């Protein structure tokens, strides 16, 4: 399988006295269809890894390649385009806009690609059907349950058929039943060729993924599926 996301010797430190090293010499290769859980205690650098992998933050050192392309030399605008076209994000707090209905929230995921509004709405409705919310298209977030909101957020992440979906504690704000649905949904994405990387504390999520990456103190200390990182 071709690699869709390659992180090589990536470090990230924040200025301060002393400087905080959030990520040190991290190596991670994600291929299409991969289903990866990133585990580790709070403060171990999981979210920083996700932000760096998602080009939301530039690494202090090392290389990030998305779809084979080195992103460190790209401008802010080019990075934005990479995020909009190749990556999908799912967050613990859902981050739905309260004043938009489900279709509008999902269509927001396609907004910055341009194209006809009608086509974006159609793709958004299609994505909502895929996550099982075909009956909730016109509902505002306040009219949806927590699990439904996160499903809307997943629909937003996958509406543009990204190479990788990066999810940060997607079940963290949900009860176990709703969380179970979200896990199934995320695990099912790989069937379409979309790689899934999930940061989680939830053993059920970790169990549903094919591969587990464990972090501690900014380092990847275990990776049970990546042939490239045995150290």
């Amino acid at each position, binding site marked *: 399988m071709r690699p869709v996301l390659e992180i090589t010797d990536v470090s990230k430190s924040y200025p301060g006295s002393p400087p905080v090293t959030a990520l040190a010499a991290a190596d991670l290769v994600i291929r299409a269809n991969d289903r990866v859980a990133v585990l580790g205690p709070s403060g171990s650098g999981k*979210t920083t890894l996700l*932000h760096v992998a*998602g080009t*939301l*933050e530039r690494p202090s050192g090392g290389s990030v390649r998305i*779809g*084979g*392309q080195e992103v460190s030399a*790209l401008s*802010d*605008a*080019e990075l*934005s*385009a*990479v*995020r*909009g*076209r*190749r*990556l999908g*994000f799912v*967050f613990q*707090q859902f*981050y739905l*806009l*309260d*004043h*938009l209905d489900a279709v*509008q929230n999902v269509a*927001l*995921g396609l*907004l*910055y*690609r*341009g*194209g006809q*509004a009608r086509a974006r709405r159609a793709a958004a409705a299609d994505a909502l059907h895929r996550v099982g919310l075909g009956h909730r298209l016109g509902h505002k977030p306040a009219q949806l349950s927590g699990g439904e909101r996160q499903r809307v957020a997943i629909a*937003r992440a996958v509406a543009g058929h990204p190479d990788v979906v990066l999810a940060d504690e997607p079940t963290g704000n949900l009860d176990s039943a709703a969380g179970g649905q979200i896990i199934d949904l995320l695990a099912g994405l790989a069937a379409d060729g979309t790689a899934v990387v999930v940061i989680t504390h939830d053993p059920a999520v970790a169990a549903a993924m094919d591969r587990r990456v464990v972090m501690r103190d900014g380092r990847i200390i275990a990776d049970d599926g990546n042939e490239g990182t045995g150290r």
Partner: protein
Amino acid sequence: MSAGLRADQTQKGPISPARSQLRAADLVLGALLGLRARKLRTALSCLGIAIGIAAAVAVLGISASSKANLLAQLGAEANLVTVTAGQGFDGSPAPLPLTAEAMIARIPPVESVTAIGYVPGATVRRTAAVPAIDTGGISVYAAQPGLLGTLSGSVAEGTFLNAATARYPAVVLGAVAAQTLGIDRVRPDTQVYLSGQYFTVIGILRPVPLAPAIDEAALVGFPVADSLLGLGGHATQIYLRTAPDQVQPVVSVLPFTANPAQPEAVQVSLPSSILAARAAARTAYAGLFLGLGAVAVLVGAVGIANIMVISVLERRAEIGLRRALGATRWQVGLQFLTESVLLSALGGVAGVLGGAAATAGYAITSGQPTVVPLVSLAIGIAVAIGVGALAGVYPAVRAARLAPAEALRSQ
């Protein structure tokens, strides 16, 4: 994905990504939805702009309405000319000759002409019991039946002098004079005590803006002024209307025509131009109100800038989300700038409508034509948009500068 490459980007290499795009329609729609989601805040924050623009539009509209009203009173042509008896070189009074009116009427462009004669020393009182010094400032003039036609005046009560009543002790009161005497109705037995005898009041005039002296006058016929008040038939002032395009030529020949013996003792003036100047002076107050409107707009702009900065702080997560979904920093900035412009434009539209409504209300209640200069509406909205853009720059830059990861971590 490579299908989205543009020609200018292919030189960077085949893997250069397509750019993020944001259509103008999507930008505006998104901003409108955002403003609609916060209705009360939107309404309150564009209030300052609305008040400022409304004040400016109302001031301009009311002054334009007043001007239109005045022009209607003047007659569009402003062709009224006044000839007044003055003093000779030696300072002695130089009354107009008896022939003056007839001579002026012979000037071809003169359309109508009428004379009045000031009756010196004549007083008007309600009854003989009123002390003689209580004249109320009312002057007595002899007038001709054609006076109202030439001055575009009209009668509020009763009738004006005619060839018959001009021969009898009948008097027509100017609007202010009637008020001073406490007469608001004309009855058959309404009389005033005029220089030693009772005159019957046959009419009361409406105000004559072109000749304010008439408002404070009691008008009697020339024949009765001759016979009872000793005027001697001399006119002291002549009003005339000329063909509208011949005002200046007529003015230049008037002194010689009116008083060939002492042309330098004749004063010629154009009441229309005096009134127009007075109207222009009145609009000087408009500057004050425009200034107040500008202050309100400024305060409104600061309010919008303030609310937009708060909005950026409140919506850090949304900013982070949009960046994650592919928005460039300038697209995020543009979104906040657009919201600011729309907010202000909304205030501008509300202000323009409010100002136009205030103008209409004022004009209708004061019986003037409603004139709202269209250019003031356009300028009002343009100012609002410009102010909104200025107010939005700082919040937009703040939103654009927010790093995506930092924005997402904030919640």
